[in-house]
């Protein structure tokens, strides 16, 4: 039996300890904690409304260690949208996103049509900041993706992050439609814009 095609799959990538799990859990459960448990791979499911009907949002929280290249490839090929997280307190963590971004390009091909959000987390740690927000912005421009700074700890921009990501999809599904003519596509684009909201 084929997998439920109704699922919308978001995958979160980034180096170890940048706060991927913290962002996901803040979003899914509304909680945060100081202690650190490294992730292997977790997936959370949420019901969202999507173009008047219901579908499941699947958020896959991946490992920051590079132990499982095969699992990483699999999540990229199954994913519909991607969140690339670094910590503003570590320039290294931004560097580490490059190979992941490149792999997404390689597996997905046409990345311009895939929702990708570059995220600088731990924006609350102003004292230890290593990466300026302008640098994140520049990288996002280069990668032709969206950008945001967040704090899982202070619950800053977390919900916005996911909403924004889904909005990106709404704009682009339309252009991804294989059938239908251009005019029709454009109409749908208007129609669909902003319809995918988190319940």
């Amino acid at each position: 039996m084929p997998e439920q095609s109704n699922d919308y799959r978001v995958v979160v990538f980034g180096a170890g300890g940048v706060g991927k799990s913290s962002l996901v859990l803040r979003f899914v459960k509304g909680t945060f904690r100081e202690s650190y448990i490294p992730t292997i791979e977790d997936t959370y499911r949420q019901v969202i409304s999507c173009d008047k009907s219901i579908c499941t949002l699947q958020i896959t929280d991946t490992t920051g260690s590079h132990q499982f290249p095969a699992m990483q490839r699999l999540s990229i090929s199954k994913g519909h949208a991607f969140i690339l997280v670094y910590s503003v307190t570590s320039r290294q963590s931004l560097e580490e996103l490059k190979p992941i971004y490149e792999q997404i390009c390689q597996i997905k091909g046409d990345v311009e049509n895939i929702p990708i959000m570059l995220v600088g987390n731990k924006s609350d740690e102003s004292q230890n900041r290593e990466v300026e927000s302008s640098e994140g912005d520049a990288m996002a421009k280069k990668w032709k993706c969206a950008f945001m700074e967040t704090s899982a700890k202070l619950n800053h921009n977390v919900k916005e992050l996911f909403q924004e990501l889904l909005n990106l999809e709404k704009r682009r599904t339309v252009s991804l439609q294989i059938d239908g003519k251009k005019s029709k596509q454009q109409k749908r684009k208007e129609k669909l814009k902003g319809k995918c909201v988190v319940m």
Partner: protein
Amino acid sequence: MKPLERFLKKQGSHLAARAGPGAGGPLQRRQSVSRILLPAFLKEPPEQPAMEAADGRWLELRPPDAALQVLLDDIILTHSLFQPTDRFLQQLHHHFLMASGSPAPCWEEGEVLPRKQAVLTVLLHFLETFKGILQEDESAGKVIKDLYLLIMKDASLYHELEDEILKLHQLVETVELKVTEETQPPNKQVKPLFRHFRRIDSCLQTRVAFRGSDEIFCRVYMPDHSYVTIRSRLSASVQDILSSVTEKLQYSEEQGTREEALILVAVASSGEKAVLQPSEECVFTTLGINSHLFACTKETFESLVPLPEEIQVSPGDTEIHRVEAEDIANHLTAFHWELFRCIHELEFVDYVFHGERGRRETANLELMLQRCSEVQHWVATEILLCEALGKRAHLLKKFVKIAAICKQNQDMLSFYAVVIGLNNAAVSRLRLTWEKLPGKFKNLFRKFENLTDPCRNHKTYREVLTKMKPPIIPFVPLILKDLTFLHEGSKTLLDGLVNIEKLHSIAEKVRTIRKYRSRPLCLEMESSPSQLQTKAYVRQFQVIDNQNLLFELSYKLEPSSQ
């Protein structure tokens, strides 16, 4: 009742007689063997009055040394029936200490060395039998280490023991006892137990045995099919698993304490649920093929539904249609030989008798059983996913051929599994398909059915098996059935004495397994890319294990004729 103590006390001089200084001639030894052995170990069970006599004869028939060797092997293999391993070793330790006490409290001067040698002989046999699995038993490891140090201290005093001590030294080294003082080996690799964590390259590697201390990754699902992956020891208890899950999920510390306790449930693809008890250990290898672990509260238990069926093959487009029967059969045999070899002989004993005494892991045996069931379902799945009648009949023929080649390979496990798979009610009801099978293959399959017929206690199969020479892969479930039968057929203890006859028959069964594996299996297989692809396919079947679903597919292919 202290059987080991008795054994050592009575046998001390005889186990050592080979090298002992004042050892008598063979005749003298034989006499004392039968004199001492019988009262110590054999108790005439009321329902079998002939046993003592029969056993006496058994001793007469063999040279005493060999008989003792067998007896020793019997006891080492089966001691866990009446005594936990660490207790067994403690007694051994105790005896050595007693022999060292100078002067020995109850023994004459000349008896000290033979007694020590007896302890050494038992210890050596023990180490040789247990080998790698000793690493899992910390308390046993500790006793062995202590005993080893004691013996080493003595080494200079008793030159006669030199050979044994050298051997002991080597064995202890190869066993690499893990004792608490020593540091744990740093980051041991996590072994891929579950399919989602298996990588193509690792599935192509030769299987090595799983041990309880191995770390594995495991997904635990929530009622809404969210999941977390935890890292766990293979031997972890349900309680340990649940606390890892709770730790991950209760992300906010303060809030956590108020949350309701979780229970762990195994949910099969059919929807069948089994609640696992908190104290249960090593649950991973006992799961059904497409079963998953769920963590939920008592309230949400009812609402648990199985994960959607994983299999996603376009009908008639799997590897099986591309590959020759011979290649599939050979890869099956090669893989099953690997799995069979990973099973420690004590796992057979422990599997049947666990629950009576402290439990050792039987993971490798469980994986073999799981695989056996997987192969059965694979056969049914492949046939039932093949929509075109002609193609399906062709596939049926291929499976009969595969069974034939497995049998030729003396891989009776694959042979049995394929035949059982073809006999699955959802497959055997496909009248149109079976009609299209060529007569020659129909006859062949009839023969196979006859061979696997359980009537007269699997007489036909047993006859075929006795004619085979090692290497053999037996149909493992039948061995377990036999062991269970032996276990339930007689008591282990009779009036406080150990029923040595029972131990012996169990040990005999284990020695059969030893014999099956006494010669290596060599199949000639090239490593071309296409062969590797077949190998990978054979090692990671995707199957439907939900019988209702198999029936559904079957009725879709060939609806009932009125």
